[in-house]
């Protein structure tokens, strides 16, 4: 067999390898699209509500928790907890203010405790559905409208709805660097306890 044929084969296989490398990256939008089409794991879409009957026999305590990450904003709910009946349409208002002297964009990501409550917690209106632009020093009240599916498991009596606001500069996500304050705290803790010299990763 000639060297020529080997070279042809080499070129074909290199092209195939390059295509597969690109395919690895293409998997990211492909999976996103699949999730969007099939409705799996789409955090930004309002939930469909089928049953709006109010179940007065149960009362669920809903706790509201608000955090920010890498974001010098004030972010807090107007009430920290509410008692609601399953199926009852409820509105809670959050107060958000940009404490910095520059225009910023943020996005809130919800999470739920206990986890199995997540699928029964239906948000009809939420500031977390979109990126939020805040001018320097701007303060805004933002509502969340939700109801709790009456099919919520019987053993769940308290649900914690926790939001974390992340910065998205220019609509892009923030670089993954630890905020200065936390580093200092960690350093202070290390200084205070000399024996804590283990090198755990993060």
């Amino acid at each position, binding site marked *: 067999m000639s060297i020529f044929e080997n070279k042809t084969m080499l070129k074909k296989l290199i092209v195939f*390898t390059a295509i*597969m490398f690109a*395919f*690895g990256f293409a998997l990211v939008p492909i999976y996103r699209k699949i999730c969007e089409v099939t409705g799996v794991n789409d955090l930004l879409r309002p939930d469909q509500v089928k049953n709006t009957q109010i179940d007065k026999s149960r009362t669920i305590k809903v706790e509201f928790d608000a955090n920010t*990450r890498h974001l010098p904003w004030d972010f807090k709910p107007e009430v920290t907890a509410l008692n609601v009946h399953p199926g009852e349409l409820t509105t809670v208002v959050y107060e958000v203010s940009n404490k910095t002297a520059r225009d910023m964009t943020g996005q809130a990501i919800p999470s739920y405790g206990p986890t199995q409550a997540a699928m029964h917690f239906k948000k009809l209106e939420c500031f977390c559905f979109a990126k939020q632009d805040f001018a320097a020093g701007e303060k805004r009240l933002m509502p969340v409208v939700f109801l709790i599916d009456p099919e919520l498991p019987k053993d769940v009596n308290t649900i914690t709805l926790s939001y974390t606001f992340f910065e998205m500069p220019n609509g*892009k996500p923030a670089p*993954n660097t630890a905020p200065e304050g936390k580093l200092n705290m960690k350093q202070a803790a290390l200084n205070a306890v000399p024996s804590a010299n283990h090198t755990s*990763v993060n």
Partner: protein
Amino acid sequence: MASIPNDHSHDHGHDHHDHHPTSWTRIFTTTNHKDIGSMYMWFSFAMFISGGIMALGIRAELFTPGLQVVRPELFNQLTTLHGIVMIFGAIMPAFVGFANWMLPLQLGAPDMAFARMNNWSFWLLPPAAILLIGSFFVPGGAAAGGWTLYPPLSVQAGMGMDMMIFAVHIMGASSIMGSINIITTILNLRAPGMTMMKMPMFAWTWLITAFLLIATMPVLAGAVTMLLTDRHFGTTFFNAAGGGDPVMFQHIFWFFGHPEVYIIALPAFGVVSQIIPTFSRKPLFGYASMVYATASIAILSFIVWAHHMYTTGLPAAGQLYFMYATMLIAVPTACKIFNWLATMWRGSISLETPMLFCLGFLFLFTMGGFTGLVLSLTPVDIQLHDTYYVVAHFHYVMVAGALFSAFAAVYYWGPKWTGWMYEEKLGKIHFWWSLIAFNVTFFPQHFLGLAGMPRRIPDYNLQFENWNAVSSVGAFAFGFAQIFFIVIVIRMITGKSGIRAAAKPWDGAEGLEWTVPSPAPYHTFETPPVVK
């Protein structure tokens, strides 16, 4: 081939002269497939011992409950590096080494198709090994989030993770070049008359494996590149803070990771398909069905990846699909197992060491396959996910599957490489020692997993103490058996048995590799043989 630069002018056509360079620089400059094959095997054994020492660190810690031998941080690093080192450092290079040595001999080719690239694909490996082993000594230690490198741990970890990522890049490049070489050699350099369906099974399984490698290694390279840019360049493929999704990594990783399982298993199947016919003194039963079964396993391996992810919250339809698709793989695999059994049926079997290791492979790999079938069931897997049952399962297929067949290959082809027979008695001791120690180590892990012991945790509940102690004793026995193995191999190389290997030391063996003298001369088949 013209690409062998060394002393080609001295070497026109006389095999008996057996010229090869003698300077120590030969190990860096050689383009000879036999030299490179041997270097792959030595590298593989060195990594096997390194990974084994890590495993013994893990088992020493798990001998009793509580923390006594290693700190939890180091324990996590040991489990992570043990996995990566054994898969990418020990098992894959071992089989690439066999491919380098044996494919040109089996196909009647003078060398691999791209001899210089072959040198490069080997020499990429030692730097990767240095990065992996060296990462234990950097601040923060080696990568510690498990060999699967899942975010968010892998995005947050220290510089050991960067070393791991670069090592994976380098080893991936090495495997891709090795695979391109193997595919081209098999497709272009076969002796006249050797049609595809006359190729030895080892060549067939390697051809399919090489295609799996060039299809999946680039995807892994992409996944770790995304990790790297998430870590340092502000992208958020997997970082939830920027809208990324950590589960996305698992999807991309297992798109590589599941075919990887067959990248490890298929060449082992090829070795077994050579050895069982030899010692049964019968041709392989169902050659064509073996080829098709191997190809179907390879194709199916691309569509079952999410069975590693049943607990990530897949929708029920997805779980059902991946469950049935996974169970489907049992069909071509069982086809191979039954073909091997049928090959032995009414054969005139003799139990030399290579055959013993193949029988051990057959028995233990089938058991690993059955536990795999158990784990393919979604509701069962959700119970057993990340328990020692999974650890037992994949060690039955990786150690008893790939490693035992690698031992079989060394005993089977070793006489061809060295020109000396190994000592049969010592080989048999190695087999029984390994078989018993292996089962003492890993069989109890099924019980531990069923009882709920989680993997990758340095401490455990008191109820798990007894079987963990048994498992640790077995692990140390298994480790020492492999020191014994290298003693056997060195005694074979130095001719301690006193028995010179004939050109065809096994009377039932078939194939072109047995038509050249033992040890195989430095240059073989410069004039291609004709296959009828």
